[in-house]
């Protein structure tokens, strides 16, 4: 019987190294292009004196290299105190803790809710509209309430940041629920018949068939949720007036924007890096966990 060509492991390793290098180069090219766009826009608008849609100067659009340089400057005037980057990274790590716990909680609740709603059609029809409604309420409205309700109940080691994690979870669970339902119901009819022919019960069908089949859908949602949980944590920090997170830095630097615009931009940069890290972690987890035929990957 003729075997079809199967890649040997070494070829595969070499190919993945080549792909990695290619992606790295692509990233650098895009970075350079973005830098060029930003600086080119600045240069053109300043030279022509254009005022639409806004006047371009060092306050509205600082030089990108100035923003990066600001990260290494000492935060307080006169060149004292810690460097800005270490303050921001500390804040980012604190926010990351809230976001990660919120993400984990939201993903679990989202998955569990998805499983329940997928199995009980009536419940799905009854509850799903309310789940959707929960996401149309602006998070800025919900956040202070969650802080006020949850904080008194939280033990000391969870105070404040635990409430923020709940807000992050609130933004996380929804995509996971929707995609879990969709994924669990995506199962091929004959794959189900096969399980029935083995006299498999609902529980085993769930874990041996439905969940593995749903994983690409679930990971597609987790990628959205990963970044949403960071946004949720940042917004959650605002009404809870936690001084340790990136949210406090955002408030702080937005108050000083007219005099120190680079501080807010630098904070933006770190917040974006945090969101991207969350996304990448989920991406790597997906690569390790989801083993599907190429055509079945979401």
């Amino acid at each position: 019987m003729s075997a079809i060509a199967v890649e040997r492991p070494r070829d595969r390793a070499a190919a993945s190294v080549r792909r990695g290098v290619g992606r790295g180069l692509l990233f650098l090219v895009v970075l350079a292009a973005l830098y060029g766009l930003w600086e080119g826009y600045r240069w053109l608008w300043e030279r022509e004196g254009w005022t639409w849609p806004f006047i371009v100067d060092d306050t509205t659009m600082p030089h990108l290299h100035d923003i990066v340089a600001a990260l290494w400057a000492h935060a307080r005037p006169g060149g004292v105190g810690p460097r800005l980057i270490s303050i921001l990274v500390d804040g980012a790590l604190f926010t990351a803790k809230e976001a990660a716990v919120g993400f984990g909680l939201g993903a679990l609740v989202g998955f569990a809710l998805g499983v329940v709603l997928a199995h009980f059609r009536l419940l799905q029809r009854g509850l799903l509209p309310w789940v959707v409604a929960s996401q149309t309420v602006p998070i800025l409205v919900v956040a202070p309430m969650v802080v006020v309700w949850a904080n008194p109940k939280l033990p000391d080691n969870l105070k404040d940041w635990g409430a923020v994690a709940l807000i992050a979870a609130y933004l996380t669970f929804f995509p996971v629920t929707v995609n879990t339902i969709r994924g669990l119901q995506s199962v091929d009819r004959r794959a189900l018949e096969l399980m029935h022919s083995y006299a498999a019960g609902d529980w085993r069908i769930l874990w041996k068939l439905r969940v593995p089949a749903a994983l690409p859908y679930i990971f597609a949602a987790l990628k959205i949720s990963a970044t949403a949980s960071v946004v949720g944590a940042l917004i959650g920090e605002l009404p809870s007036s936690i001084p340790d997170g990136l949210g406090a830095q955002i408030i702080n630097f937005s108050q000083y924007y007219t005099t120190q615009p680079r501080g807010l931009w630098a904070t933006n940069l770190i917040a974006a890096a945090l969101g991207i890290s969350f996304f990448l972690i989920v991406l790597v987890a997906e690569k390790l966990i989801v083993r599907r035929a190429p055509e079945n990957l979401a």
Partner: protein
Amino acid sequence: MSVVEIGGVTKRFGQTTALQGINLEIAEREFVSLIGPSGCGKSTLLRIVGDLIQPTDGEVVVNGKSARRARVDRDYGIVFQDPVLYDWRTVAKNVSLPLEMAKWPRQKRAARVREMLELVELTGFGDHRPWQLSGGMQQRVSIARALSFDPALLLMDEPFGALDEMTRERMNMELLRIWEASGSTIVFVTHSISEAVFLSTRVAVMSPRPGRISETIPIDLPQPRTAGTREEPRFFELVTQVREALHLGHDVDRTTPAPQEASA
């Protein structure tokens, strides 16, 4: 002793009568093909035998018990037109899936999977992913999976329908070898007259609207069948006989327009 007894089975989907008064008895070690045009209910009949759908009327007895009991006891293996392999599992893990469901211990499972892969001549492919194999190889994996727990009965729903003619003929030979080696009883759904005649000990010819068995034809070709079997005069006589039976069944309602088939 009969492995399958189908008594007066009728199946209606809403207004459509898919099957009408089916009677069929299948003895141990028989290879029975159900052949008929699309929409004659042959796949439906197979699923009723497997208790995957319930008849509107009538009774199915498998191994002396109800079809439901037989399913719960895992008395049959099933093979579909598509391999329906789980692509998140390796080939070996796919074959061992029914054994996991039957709670076999790990050691016993591994030994059995090796044995089954050898039977379908896929030794060494256990660690591959299903999508790395050709269509014919995938279908052999699904046959290995269906046979892994040594079911008394094998239900096959056009298992080679998606394969090219060459692969199909080779798979036919393989199936006969496996049938010989495993000692199971096979119910086989097909569109192909020559395939049905070549493989079977008996062919049940079905006709549509409503689906019924219009004739059963014993195939008295000598066993074991070989590549030469397809060239024997008796083979052609039987092929002709099945073809005429099919057309006869068709002539009855040649004047009525064909409605959309309920189930292929």
